[in-house]
């Protein structure tokens, strides 16, 4: 990554930390000025992240979503955009309390990942690769939203069980709404992730040998395991007995596993998938 890109990356991280501080202060005393500062900080962070991805796309001559670094930055940008888009409806600091730490964690994770861009393989069409990554990432982003709703659900539920009326409890959305959002996000994520995965498997079926990918590849297995958990999540979400807490927990677990499958597999096992290769080619174990 070039020096200006590095500066932009850390500027985005700094803006997100600033937004986190503002949100923490708003938990103590919410005020329109602080709300405005949170949004300004988040907007600056979003602009930095989009600028970074645009710069990397221009430098590589292709969409900057091929490497795991770019994908993680893109996921962070999508989450920040979500905060900005939802802010007129969720005026309190509750969403920021849960979303911003996740976004900062993703950026810290990205900072530990190799940043070299990789040329897309010529064996498969460019649009198919971009579609595969975009749909999969959109699925992960949707599940991230589900996971956030699940976390907020658990936080609100815990406070209700304890009869607590602390500052956060009054600013969290109600349980019914969180449950609805959780299910909606999980369902949307399932569709997007399934399409992305299907596209990937299709490419593998057609060009598997030249890509060096088989059904026994660690990345493929982990993605299918995550998809199976996704199916479980959607099915359990439809069963009345499992509504509420179990589904909230399962969404959080599914999101965590999905991030691990997307980012972590390359660290643990050799894989022919570009995400994993990006990790191992940079000298990571």
């Amino acid at each position, binding site marked *: 990554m070039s020096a200006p890109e590095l500066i932009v990356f850390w500027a985005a991280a700094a803006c997100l930390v600033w937004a986190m501080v503002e949100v923490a202060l708003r938990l103590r*005393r919410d005020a329109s000025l602080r709300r405005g500062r949170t949004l300004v900080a988040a907007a600056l962070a979003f602009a930095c992240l989009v600028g970074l991805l645009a710069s990397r796309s221009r430098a590589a001559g292709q969409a900057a979503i091929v490497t795991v670094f770019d994908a993680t930055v893109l996921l962070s940008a999508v989450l920040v955009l979500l905060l900005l888009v939802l802010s007129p409806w969720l005026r309190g600091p509750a969403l920021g309390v849960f979303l911003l730490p996740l976004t900062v964690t993703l950026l810290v994770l990205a900072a530990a990942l190799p940043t070299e861009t990789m040329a897309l393989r010529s064996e498969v069409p460019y649009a198919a690769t971009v579609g595969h990554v975009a749909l999969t990432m959109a699925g992960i982003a949707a599940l991230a939203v589900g996971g956030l709703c699940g976390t907020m659900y658990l936080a609100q539920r815990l406070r*209700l069980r304890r*009869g607590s*009326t602390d500052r956060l409890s009054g600013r969290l959305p*109600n*349980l019914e709404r969180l449950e609805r959002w959780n299910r909606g996000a999980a369902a949307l994520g399932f569709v997007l992730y399934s399409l992305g995965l299907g596209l990937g498997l299709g490419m593998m079926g057609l060009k598997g040998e030249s890509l060096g990918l088989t059904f026994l590849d660690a990345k493929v297995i982990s993605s299918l395991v995550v998809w199976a958990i996704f199916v479980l999540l959607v099915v359990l979400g439809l069963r009345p007995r499992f*509504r*509420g807490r179990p589904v909230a927990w399962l969404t959080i677990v599914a999101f965590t596993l999905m991030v691990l499958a997307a980012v972590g597999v390359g660290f643990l096992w050799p894989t022919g998938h570009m995400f994993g290769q990006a990790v191992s080619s940079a000298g990571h174990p």
Partner: protein
Amino acid sequence: MKILCAGVNHQSAPLEVRGRLAFDRVSTARALSMLRTRFPGGEFAILSTCNRVEVYCAAAAAGPPEADELLRALAEFHEVPAGDLGQHAYRLATEDAVRHLMAVAASLDSMVIGESEIIGQVKEAFVWAAEAGATGKYLNRLFHRSFHAAKRVHAATEIGRRRTSVASVAVDFASRIFSGLESKRILVVGAGDVAERAVAHLRSLGCRGVTVVNRTAEHARRLAEALGAGVRPWDELDDALADSDILITSTASEQPILSRARLAAAHKRRRYANWLILDLAVPRDVDPLTAGLANVYLYDLDWLGQVVSENLRLREGEVDVAAGIVADEVRAYLDWFEVRDVGPLVDELETRLHALGDEEVERLLKRLPPETSEAAREEIRLATHRIVHKLLHEPIEGLKDEAKRGRAPATVRLLRRLFALGGDDD
């Protein structure tokens, strides 16, 4: 100028005294008219709520009325012995009066600290006074500053957000569980007063589907009529439980009438949707083990009472922060008030000295050779104006400083004497 406040409140006078002094819109207009006739030149406003009756006045510092005269007028208006009123009344002047009104507006002087009705009542009092033409620049500014203080206090503290009644805490829990309370079905088992208040609170938020079940059908019908609710017979209790989203129990039974097993069966029929159970009976109507069921939120009277106590404690903890905000606003108003008080003198001083300057310039211009150009003459006029302005700058700033320190009257007298301005603003 001075600001006065005279009146009684829930701390100083019993309800009976406050009740005899209360004002409605019509009597407020009449009383304001009486005060303006009796004390011409003064500004007046009357704040009358169930917890207080207060008269606010802005008038010349040395002239009438005094606080006792306001109380006498109040007593005469309501035909109450002045002595009876005097022993319960408080009398506050300028800084104390300003602080009092701001504390009242910010709900720091209310019976339940942080309650939100008072700001509306203060606004109403101001509107009525303004409509009667009884306010002027001093009270206008004071009331607007008080509204600002109240807004700041409510935005910056939790003072108004903490619920302080069992019914409102119960509703707060309901709104944290359900979205769209208006579509939720409420089942009331029993006919206790607390349950009635809780349902009334929920209905005020739009809840419509209320059903009452009671062992005694007559009691159920009476409560249902009071709440505008439906009635189901006692032997349909299990069906009614299965149909409810919010269950409020308040029977006089000595034993829990709703066991865990019974509620678990109903919960299964409800497909385990969120269920808020408010057990407002003493002793309990609901087996406490029911709280262990998934998506069931059970609160009994003790628990709700503890939340109320905790909220009251937390509200009081916010009082210091709120008092700090009020102190800021009091200072801001007094800064304006004290400087505004010397405004007429400043105007007179400027007029007098500029007139002297103009007089001397005209005399000088007449003595100048006729060939002196108009531009040069204008330059002389402007220079003189600037000199007078510069000479006045320091004394005027000093006067404003003195006013801010509360030492204006003596300085005003001195300046009037030194510059032969005549009259005495004080």
